[in-house]
């Protein structure tokens, strides 16, 4: 089925509920429905097997319009259908929960209610996901009239980890926010009976930085550098997704050479990310030798990225309208050399993880997720592909240069931890191949075209395949120098549901590996808000922080 047919099918499914059907951009339909019809419309989409719920975007149209909008984006290959629900801004905007049909929506709904003040009726867990527990009632950061002064913390009974005391054989093992297994802050509570997990909960938001809100106060160019800093591992994913969306809105045609270089860097980023993951996952299993070896080899790709872009982590290769640096003859040579070395090493690791008997004891048959479960939990990226679910934006909806330099889809039917190792390592071999093809056939042409200061009004969805799965961007412009609303949904958020559900019944010793198996990235989950405490000398405004930084570097 092609994209047109899919969109036509979606229109037919939603026809009974549609108030208005719009086609805001290619490959997307926008169906306005009543809040009361939402659950029915979702059920219709689900029973027709039309794609998956990818994100919920909450938008405030401002006090003048007096309306809030919640957009439920469904993705099916390249086709995107947005259900647009309009809600009154004043009083009690209410919407029904769809979490009973789509479990992963629980996270999106918690975000929607805490950020925009929409009451989601019937959502399984109405507590804060990202915002701190002492956040004041009735203050919603995504509202247009939000002021940071309103966000002074309030005294409240904060739900604590259940008492330290022993309860027979059963107790709760807290993992995080500070724990040796987690290099990033997240909090998990695993109820264990002896060594067996009987329950799992989690809490995010420890590194929430308010990036979505911050984009609304910066111009289009500044945002590129801000968004790059969402994640230290997939920084290029975020700049690509943002640049791609902004370019679509501004109707800027990016030269092929620039797109090819973007894909080249994305491939290198994937290698760096998966090798890092391989090391971390091996460390969780207590296989430190593999950890040290894979991180040593990862240095090759880090140095290569540094040679190509000048940076090891935030590459800053993309600019709006193209790329910043060219890949010359000299650099092509280093790329080929590095690929030769890495390919050999990756084949070796593939051999190790599929043949080392002791390692297989820890990975084979552990945390097995079937294809149906992967669909139900809304898994994305390698986590989904290891369960045989063919979901890869690069293949389903080729963007940028991916139609010119295609990648092959890697899946594995088994769904256990071993499959996750195999899928990721095979993807690396594909990446090596694609990188070589790009370097050998780099099209001639400009590196960048001019990007306007103001972007015409419009809304767009931009999807990019990050190393961990689909990254979803929704960008809305009202013709100004900065976006009106920028919504980011990163792949890790979708994969949590599967891990938390699968952990129950497993041994405590398997949990770190299962968490590592989805390659979680907390930084990209947590983005939105700064905490401001009363009389807190640690809190600074942006201007103060800037002045402090300048002062500090002057006095060195």
């Amino acid at each position, binding site marked *: 089925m092609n994209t047109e047919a899919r969109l036509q099918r979606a229109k037919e499914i939603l026809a009974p509920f549609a108030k208005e059907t719009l086609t805001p951009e290619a490959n997307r339909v926008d169906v306005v429905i009543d809040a009361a019809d939402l659950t029915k419309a979702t059920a219709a989409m689900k029973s027709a097997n039309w794609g998956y719920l990818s994100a919920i975007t909450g938008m405030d149209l401002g006090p003048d319009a007096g309306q809030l909008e919640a957009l439920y984006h469904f993705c099916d290959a390249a086709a995107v259908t947005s259900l647009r629900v309009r809600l009154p801004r004043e009083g009690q905007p209410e919407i029904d929960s769809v979490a009973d049909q789509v479990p992963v929506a629980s996270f999106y709904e918690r975000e929607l209610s805490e950020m925009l003040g929409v009451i989601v009726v019937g959502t399984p867990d109405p507590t804060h996901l990202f915002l701190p527990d002492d956040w004041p009632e009735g203050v919603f950061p995504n509202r247009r009239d939000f002021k940071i002064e309103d966000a002074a913390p309030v005294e409240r009974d904060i739900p604590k980890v259940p008492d*330290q*005391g*022993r309860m027979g054989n059963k*107790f*709760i*093992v*807290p993992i995080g926010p500070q*724990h*040796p*297994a987690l290099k990033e802050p997240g909090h998990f509570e695993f109820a*264990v009976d*002896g*060594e067996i997990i009987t329950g799992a909960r989690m809490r995010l938001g420890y590194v929430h930085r308010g990036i979505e809100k911050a984009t609304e106060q910066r111009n289009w160019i500044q945002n590129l550098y801000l968004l790059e800093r969402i994640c230290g591992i997939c920084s290029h994913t975020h700049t690509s997704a943002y640049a791609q969306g902004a370019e679509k809105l501004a109707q800027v045609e990016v030269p092929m050479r620039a797109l090819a270089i973007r894909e080249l860097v994305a491939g290198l980023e994937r290698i760096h990310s998966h090798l890092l993951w391989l090391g971390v996952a091996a*460390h*969780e*299993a*207590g*296989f*430190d*030798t593999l950890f*040290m*070896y894979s991180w*040593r080899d990862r240095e090759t790709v880090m140095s290569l990225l540094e040679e190509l872009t000048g940076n090891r982590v935030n590459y800053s290769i993309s600019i709006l309208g193209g790329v910043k640096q060219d890949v010359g003859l000299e650099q092509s040579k280093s790329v080929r050399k590095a690929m030769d070395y890495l390919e050999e090493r990756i084949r070796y690791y593939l051999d190790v993880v599929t043949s*080392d008997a*002791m*390692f297989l*004891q*820890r990975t084979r048959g552990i945390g097995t997720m079937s294809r149906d479960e992967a669909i139900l939990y809304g898994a994305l990226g390698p986590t989904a592909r290891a369960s045989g679910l063919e979901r890869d934006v690069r293949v389903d909806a080729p963007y940028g240069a991916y139609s010119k330099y295609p990648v092959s889809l890697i899946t594995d039917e088994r769904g256990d931890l071993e499959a996750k190792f195999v899928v990721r390592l095979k993807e690396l071999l594909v990446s090596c191949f694609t990188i070589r093809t790009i370097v050998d056939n780099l099209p001639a042409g400009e590196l960048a075209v001019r990007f306007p200061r103001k972007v015409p009004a419009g809304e767009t969805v931009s999807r990019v395949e990050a190393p961990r799965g689909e990254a979803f961007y929704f960008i809305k412009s009202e013709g100004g120098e900065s976006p009106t609303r920028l919504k980011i949904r990163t792949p890790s958020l979708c994969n949590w549901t599967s891990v938390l559900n699968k952990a129950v019944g497993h*041994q*405590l*010793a*398997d*949990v*770190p590996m299962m968490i590592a198996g989805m390659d979680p990235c907390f930084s990209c989950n947590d983005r939105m808000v700064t905490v401001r405490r009363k009389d807190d000398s640690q809190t600074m405004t942006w201007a103060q922080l800037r002045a402090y930084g300048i002062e500090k570097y002057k006095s060195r």
Partner: protein
Amino acid sequence: METVLAITSIMFFPAGISLILGGMLYEWADRKLVARFQNRIGPRWFQPLADTIKLISKEEIQPLGVNRALFFGLPVVALAGALTAALYVPIFGLQPAHSFPGDLIVTLYLLSLLTMCTGLAGWNSDSRFSIVGATRTLTQLFAYEAPFLLALLGPAMAADSWQISKIVAYTETHWMIVLQPVGFVIALIGLMGKLELPPFDAPEAETEIVAGALTEYSGRGLALFHIGKSVEMVVGVTLVTAFYLGGLGNPLIFLAKTLGLLLVMAFLQSVLVRLRIDQTVGMWWRAGAILALLQILALIVLK
């Protein structure tokens, strides 16, 4: 005069200070070898000593909810046990400081004292990581203890004595590794289990339970446990070498043979993946114990 000698042997030589320093040296060798196997640089030679000095100079925090006497007493008992065990083995290739018929059993139980103290220390704590760690430590103790003991009984039966000095006199002329290869493998792997080295480091798996039973220990208490462990490493390596690798003639041979054994252990540590606690127990009882028993049976039948 005898009293002075006894005090000297416990405080300075062969046990006491010299053994503690020796333990640090072996700990360093182990860490350095593993590091080189893992393509790292590894610590400098004085790192274990520096770690110990740092720990001893730091504040010792007594957590809430622990029994004070146990909390401070256990590290001392653990170290004392390991040091006392050293008196009965031919440490540094010298004659044991003390010897009596049946001292093999006493030595083995003195060596287990450290593990028991670690388990008790975890149980004494209110931290959930410590409790899970203590459970794992003690579960594992029951897994490797019997096969390890059986593996050391092999040479004892061959030498017709349960006195370490007599067994060593016998093994100096008989290489037990050739005569009882199964026993050697079980003894070596059992020693790795006793020392909680990978793949038997589930009791202190940092990615799950932080530092296991010793999570709440700091400062001096932690230092004592660490020293105890390095002393146990020397004693254990000495025992296995003396029993299976043709005895220990003099300090030079001792150094060569024990470091050779350490090299093998470091290699195994680097290439093996941590076992889950159920896998550890399963492996010992399904394979280790049965093999050790079969060897003993064979010895009885052949004699």
